[in-house]
């Protein structure tokens, strides 16, 4: 089974965000693998371990995203594809998906996996749009994958604790729900092995892909507060005492 996993590199969870127009200042912050994508990668590695085949990590962005591809290779992916694009943050979901689809197309993978959404832009559309672009069936918010020959039996999460089983033929595109598995750490052996693994670089020009944006981020900003928050100060003990008093006599909820 040949599996492509789309992995995004995003600012670290605790990175202080400084806004710059329609994006953020990248100079002073660290980056990491988008957490929802790490569940998709883990699922791909597990499918390969069970059914054999190959796992390809595909990531788009500037040079720095190679680090995230290497992390995927260290965890067990077989090779990487780096879609080099310094301005990828300007792409709308459709443009990003067209680019990723162009990079994935020639691989003729049985399965393309994405995470649920990215922790930066959070469009959550990539998997569905790649399925449209590549004319493949898809399913999203997947909590379990069972391979039965040329068919998948999937457990899809719905809202409020409901689930649904669905059948989906291969080849297909799936968006994986976070929490589907327990993500592995890279081993030292894996990190050493990754050094010999190939990362191919492709570009908009080499793939002949272009797209016109359908939407534009005009600006990003820190949201204005709609609720007045009363902040309590002091030592931990003082703050705890104040809070109990407020809850008891002001809010009257305890």
């Amino acid at each position: 089974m040949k599996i492509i996993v789309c992995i995004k590199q995003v600012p670290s969870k605790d990175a202080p965000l400084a806004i710059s127009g329609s994006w953020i200042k990248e100079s002073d912050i660290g980056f990491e693998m988008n957490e929802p994508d790490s569940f998709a990668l883990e699922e791909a590695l597990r499918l390969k371990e069970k059914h054999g085949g190959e796992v390809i990590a595909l990531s788009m962005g500037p040079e720095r995203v190679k680090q995230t591809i290497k992390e995927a290779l260290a965890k067990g992916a077989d090779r990487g594809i780096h879609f080099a694009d310094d301005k990828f943050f300007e792409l709308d979901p459709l443009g990003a998906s067209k680019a990723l689809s162009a990079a994935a197309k020639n691989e003729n993978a049985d399965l393309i996996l994405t995470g649920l959404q990215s922790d930066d832009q959070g469009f959550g559309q990539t998997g569905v749009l790649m399925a449209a672009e590549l004319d493949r069936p898809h399913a999203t918010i997947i909590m379990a994958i069972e391979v039965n020959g040329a068919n998948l039996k999937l457990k899809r999460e719905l809202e409020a604790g409901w689930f649904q089983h669905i059948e989906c033929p291969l080849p297909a595109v799936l968006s994986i729900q976070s929490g589907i598995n327990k993500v592995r750490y890279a081993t030292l052996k894996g990190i050493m092995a990754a050094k010999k693994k190939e990362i191919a670089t492709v570009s908009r020009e080499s793939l002949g892909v272009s797209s016109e944006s359908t939407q534009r981020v005009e600006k990003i900003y820190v949201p204005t507060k709609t609720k007045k928050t009363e902040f309590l100060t002091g030592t931990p003990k003082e703050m705890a005492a104040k809070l109990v008093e407020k809850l008891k006599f002001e809010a009257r909820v305890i």
Partner: protein
Amino acid sequence: MKILVVTEHRQGKWNNASFETLAAAQQIAGAANGSVSAAVLGKGISAFADGLGTKAVAEVLSVEHDLLADYTPDGYCIALKQVIESARPDLVLFPHTYQVRDFAPKLAASLGKGMIGDCVGYRSEGGKLVFVRQMFQGKTVADVSFLGSGPWFASFQAGAFRADLVQAHASGKAPVNGVNVQLNAAQIRTKPLELFKEAKSAVDLTQAPLIVAIGRGIKAPENIPQAEAVARAMGAEIAASRPICDEGWLPMERQIGSSGQTVAPKLYLALGISGAIQHVVGMKGARTIVAINKDQNAPIFEIADYGVVGDIFEIMPALAEELQKAK
């Protein structure tokens, strides 16, 4: 401006977010001198169509087909593409549900258009419609506008608008018009099977008046007893954001948020929860919200009544003690 709202129902019940989006559409249309229509898809849906007809809409588009009895992304995309091509709306609005996430981007792409998803609001700037959506897990918001010609596609987050503000139809009933769509079984590639719930949950958090919830800030499962001590001293139920349940530190039935339970207790105490939107939609209806977090910029403080910026590991034991004293 002509707006089409695509509504959602499952197992004979409305998804109430449909009416939040309908309210949003009425507000947008009201300011732009536009009109709103509402579509409902399925099989045997006349009661749903009639229900929509009692709202202030120009018409209800009732899209009936045997192959739409159960939701499939292929079926919905093929049917709605035909509906949109015949109704020719300028703007198509959806509630941002799991189902909408599954098909709406593809529907828009099939018409060569993009979708602005998960919006929390909109503004009209000199006649231009700007949609507001969150980025960086709610730490920032973005103004996003459409480029090129319509139809445009956007979805609104659950809770972004109030369903009780939907205007009723002035004269009692809007026309319900059936839309015939061409759809055959071979076009639908995925096969939906049974709907189910996991083991029935022993706790019903929706009924709990007081909830103490933990997030990533709790760091390790061995720290959870400290939060449980606070909950015990208060007589509260313990709950968590998704990552905690994903890790298996607390059972899934204790999860609050879009994929877990939606609660509206008297008091919601958030310990080390940053306030990612997936969590906030499940608890923002709480009467009093207290947030304790070391990051003063955490989005949870946006909705908190009382905030404590500090280390939960220092505050939890102090709080448990003070609560005991106050009993």
